[in-house]
Structure formats: C-alpha cells, structure tokens
C-alpha cells in the first residue's frame, strides 16, 4: 500500500514538474532561440520603454525606444536595407495597434532601414484582451524573419466586452471594426449553404444511392450509363444552374449599387529618413575580443580616441538585448523580473579617456546572462564575428552610443 502511494506521489510530481517546465518555456517565447551572432549583429535596441505596465481594457499604452541596424549585419542574411516592417510582439491581437511611427513617419506600410543609422520608434496600442503580456518591439525583415527587441510585462484587466474600436470611412460612415461586415458575410455564406445543401438533398432523396447506382452503372456500361439520369434530374440541374448564375449576377449588381465606391487593397513602401547624426567626439576600434567560456566573461580591448572636450568612460555595453552596466557610472534597475540587465557586470580597465587622448581600454562584461540567455553558442558561429553597442558617458552625463564589432576568439580554459 505504502509503495503504491509513493508511486502515485512520484507520478504526480513528474506531471506537475512537466507543467512547470512547459510554463517556463512558454514565457521565454523564442527570443533565446535566435542565434547569438544574429542577435548581436542585426538590430541594437535601446531605451525601450512602455508608458504603463498596468492598464484596463480600452486604455492606451505607448511602446517607445530606439534602434540601430548593425553595421556588422551578417552577409548571409537578407539585408534590412531592402524591406522591413516595424511590428509588435504580443500574443495575437491582445492589443490593437492604433499608430506606429519611426522617426515620426507612420509605419502602416513596409520600409527599409539603413545600417548604422539611428531610429526612434513609438507604437500606440489599445488594450483588447485581459491578461499579462510580454510586449516586445519587433522588426520583421523580408527574407530574414523577426528581429525581436527587449520585452516588458504589461498587465491588462477590466471587461473585454467593453472594448471599442471604431473607424470612420472616407464616405463618412462610422464602423465598429469588431463586427463590421460580419452579418453581411454570414448572410451570403448561409444563402450559398442553403442552395448547396438543397442540391445535396435532391440527390440524397434518391437514397439508397451508393450500391444501387454502382450496380446499375456497372450493368449499363460506360456507353449507356447516362440512362440512369432522369429528365427530372436534368430539369433540376438546369434550374440550379440558372439559379446560381442569376444569384451571382444579381448579388454582384446589388453590391455595386450598395457600395459604389471601393478601392483595391493598399500596399507599398514608405521612406523613413534616419535621425540626423549627433556630433560624435569618439572614435572607437575593437582591437581584440575574447569570450572566456568557463567564466562567462566577455573581454574587449578597445582603442578610443576622444576629440571632445570632456573625459569619457564606458557606462554600458549592450549586445543581443542584454545590458551590462558599469555601476560606477550608471545606476540602472531592471524594470521587471525579465528585464535583461546585469546592473553591476561591466568592468573597465584603463579608466576614462581624456579630451584629445587616444588610449587603449579593456572592458569586461561578466555575467551569467551570457549563459542563461544562450549567448554562449556564439562560439558556434560560422564567421565568429560579434558586435554590440557601447555607451560612453562624459563628465556632464552626456551619452554617446558607439557600435563596435569584429572577430571574437573563444577561450576554453
């Protein structure tokens, strides 16, 4: 008896733990599945924020931030400079997207983004379904797929039945986008169902049909098999044919009368000018990059030239949506439990770079995030190139984002 109880308890434990595993993997929703070198060398996202994390149905949330397509974009991946679309990563239409802009340009259609340029985005969403959602900005690149940005959790509560989403057509009609046109589509579909079922019923009325007709056709042979078709069958067929053609013609004419003004589906590309380049007093060259696997430590040797008038130092290194912060320069707190920030994981050797000086500094980004976010498989890359965004800060707190990239050497011991 005791053994049986223990067996049942073990079985229940296994089932429960499998649920836990399933829930955990569902929360990850795929960001970590993308190859690290693609994450590091496609789009650098930064300053991603949501205007609220707790909202009700019909409330508005704005997802804002900036991104920079990498200058080290992989050769084998179709370029973001051809066709791309700013999207939002949420589970289905849990929100409706009211507006989406990059550098102020509406992003209803697709566009192209230039490598090395900076873009600010703002997406306005309206809550539609109750739940807890990890909201990500996403850039879909044609031929490449979705390049997902950092996600933040947003809670939506309230009454889904109260959701409203209307629009006004150019003919002045205000429509409810949740239900518009459905009754009409259902009516015509039902009408065709009735006619189709009537045709089916006519032949079913001759039941039994399978065996007797099979035998009769077999007896009559191919040449005489048409004798099985009666005059009534032909008359009914003629009536249905005329009815069908009349209904198609009549309904088409009725529709033309009712909706005389329509336009074809709209598509095309829009142009988004990049932000005007800010004055950049820094020149940074990555001279050596090594990833030490046992210590989960990324080491970069950088040659920095400061032509500005204030000393600068590295405050942050961002790569593949992970942020490594130098706490001596910058205090950053994670916005939620899944905000991928290592708040005290960036160490800089060589100090700040004085105005007019060229100096070699060494930056260490050491954190378990490399491992937990599956970035360590960067050593499996076929070209062993890495890239990331360094944020330098001057004495006045002015921030200078600079992209660095180059070859990476793994260290195994």
């Amino acid at each position, binding site marked *: 008896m005791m053994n049986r109880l223990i067996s049942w308890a073990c079985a229940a434990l296994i089932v429960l733990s499998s649920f836990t595993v399933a829930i955990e993997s569902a929360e990850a929703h795929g960001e970590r599945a993308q190859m690290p070198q693609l994450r590091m060398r496609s789009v650098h996202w930064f300053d991603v924020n949501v205007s609220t994390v707790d909202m009700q149905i019909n409330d508005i949330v704005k997802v804002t931030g900036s991104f920079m397509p990498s200058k080290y974009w992989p050769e084998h991946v179709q370029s973001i400079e051809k066709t791309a679309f700013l999207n939002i990563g949420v589970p289905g239409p849990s929100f409706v*997207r009211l507006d989406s802009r990059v550098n102020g340009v509406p992003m209803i259609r697709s566009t192209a983004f230039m490598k090395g340029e900076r873009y600010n985005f703002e997406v306005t969403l309206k809550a539609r379904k109750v739940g807890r959602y990890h909201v990500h900005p*996403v850039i879909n690149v044609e031929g490449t797929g979705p390049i997902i940005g950092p996600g933040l959790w947003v809670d939506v509560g309230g009454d889904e039945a109260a959701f409203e989403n209307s629009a006004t057509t150019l003919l002045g009609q205000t429509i409810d*986008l949740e239900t*518009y*046109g459905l009754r009409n589509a259902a009516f015509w579909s039902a009408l065709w169902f009735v006619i189709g079922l009537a*045709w089916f019923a006519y032949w079913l009325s001759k039941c039994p049909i399978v*065996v007797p*007709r099979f035998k009769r056709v077999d007896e009559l042979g191919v040449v005489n098999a048409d004798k099985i078709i009666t005059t009534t069958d*032909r008359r009914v067929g003629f009536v249905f044919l005329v009815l069908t053609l009349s209904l198609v013609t009549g309904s088409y004419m009725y529709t033309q009368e009712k909706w005389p003004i329509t336009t*074809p589906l709209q598509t095309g590309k829009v142009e988004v000018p990049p932000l005007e380049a800010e004055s950049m007093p820094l020149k940074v060259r990555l001279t050596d990059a090594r990833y030490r696997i046992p210590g989960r430590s990324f080491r970069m040797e950088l040659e920095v030239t400061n032509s500005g008038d204030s000393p600068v130092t590295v405050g942050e290194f961002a790569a593949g949506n992970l942020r490594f912060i130098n706490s001596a320069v910058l205090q950053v707190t994670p916005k939620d439990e899944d905000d991928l920030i290592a708040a005290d994981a960036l160490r800089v050797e060589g100090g700040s770079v004085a105005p007019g000086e060229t100096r070699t500094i060494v930056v260490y980004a050491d954190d378990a995030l490399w491992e937990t976010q599956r970035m360590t498989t960067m050593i499996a890359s076929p070209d062993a190139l890495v890239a990331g965004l360094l944020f330098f800060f001057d004495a006045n707190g002015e921030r200078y984002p600079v992209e660095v990239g180059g070859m990476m050497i793994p260290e195994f011991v």
Partner: protein
Amino acid sequence: MSQELTVSAVRSTAEQHRVHVQVDLLAIPLVVLLFAAVFSFQFALLVGDWDYWIDWRDRRWWPLVTPLALTILPAVFSYFLWERLRLPLAATLTILALTAAAWVSRYLNFHLFANFPMNMVWPSAYIGLGLIVDCILLLTGSFFWTGLLGGFAFAVLLYPMNWPLLAPFQVPLELHGTMLTVSDLMGFEYVRTAIPEYVRIIEQSTLRTFGEAVTPLTAVFAGFLNIMNFWFWTWIGYLGSKALWIRKIV
C-alpha cells in the same frame, strides 16, 4: 469431394433495401468527413493566407491562385462519382465540406483561440462554383464540356461571387495621412506578429495591367488556366478510379 455453396445474406427485396440504406448511412457521412479533412489540408497548403485574412483577398493573386487550387478535389472526385455512380455531386459536396470545416476552424481557432474578430477571418463563398460544375456535368454528361465551360466559369465567377461579402471591406478610409481600405486597416490594427505587411502577396502596381480592368483580366486568365487544370485533375481522377496502383501491389 467438397461442394462450395454461395448463399446470399439478404433474403428479400425489403432487406436488400435496408442494407443499401445502411451502406449510405455509413458511407456518405464518412465521405463528407473525408472531403472536409482532405480539402481543408490541401486548401490550407495551397491557398492558406489568401483565404484566412480579408486583407489578402486582392484583385490579382487571390482570384488566380484560389480557383486553381480549389478545382483539384472537385475535379478528381467528380470523375469518380460520375463514372461509378452517375452522381453529379462531387464539386458541390467537396466545397460544402470545405466551407463548413472552414467556418468551424475560423470560429474555434482564429476567433476563440487566437482572438481575431470573426469579420477579419470569415471564409470565402465558393459553394456556387461547385454547383456550376456539377450542373454542367449533369447537363452535358461530358468532362470535356464540363472542363471547358465549368472550369472556365469556376475561375471567372469566383470574384463576383464573393464581391457581395468583400465589398464592404474595400471601402476607403484614412489613417495618419495614408489611404487604406477597411481590410488594410484591420490588418494593421489587429496585430499579427508573424505576418508583417510585406508578406502579403497582393497586387502591387498597375503598370502591367490593361487599363483599370485588373480583376476581369485576372479572372479570364484564371479561367483559361482552369480549363486545363480541370481536365488535368479529371485525368488524375480517372487514373485513381482505375486503381492501377492497387493492382500492382496486390
């Protein structure tokens, strides 16, 4: 010496009638379910998004791709049901089964599970196309004429048959300085992370069209293609009904 006796299990005409009815009761629902399953799978593979979303039903690709894919099973099964049972029913029945399965799937999967509003994902109306093919087959008794007239009409009439359902969604409106149709607006607002705007395979320009007659030209072109398409798939039905491959195996 043993003597083989063949004794029928059916002893009267009434009993035979009952058996035949029972065969119908078993076979017909199974065939309808089979049609629904096979057609749903085949249609999802070959047409897919063009039928799933209203912002994919354009004037150029949807009326061309859809009839070519939609003709396959009606043509194959028309041959079988006509040659073996003289039943001009396959086109209507397959499309009825497909449409019924599509409504169930859109409601359960797209609307209830994935949360898209039903008016964004309703299935198109194709049942009338099946009726035209079946009636022409019944009246002519010929696959040649059915292909020529029915196959052509099948593709030509797809767009006008759906226009009463579709027209309200192609009314223009303005969003942030851009003109859109109601369909485009729904495609933009109801977020589909995996379906960015550029993925839609829809008409992109008017340079290659003849005046403004985009839809009629596409429909007539699709009609001509569909004549051969119908004949080809009827021929496949002919091969299938002979079941040569079974004889080779057995």
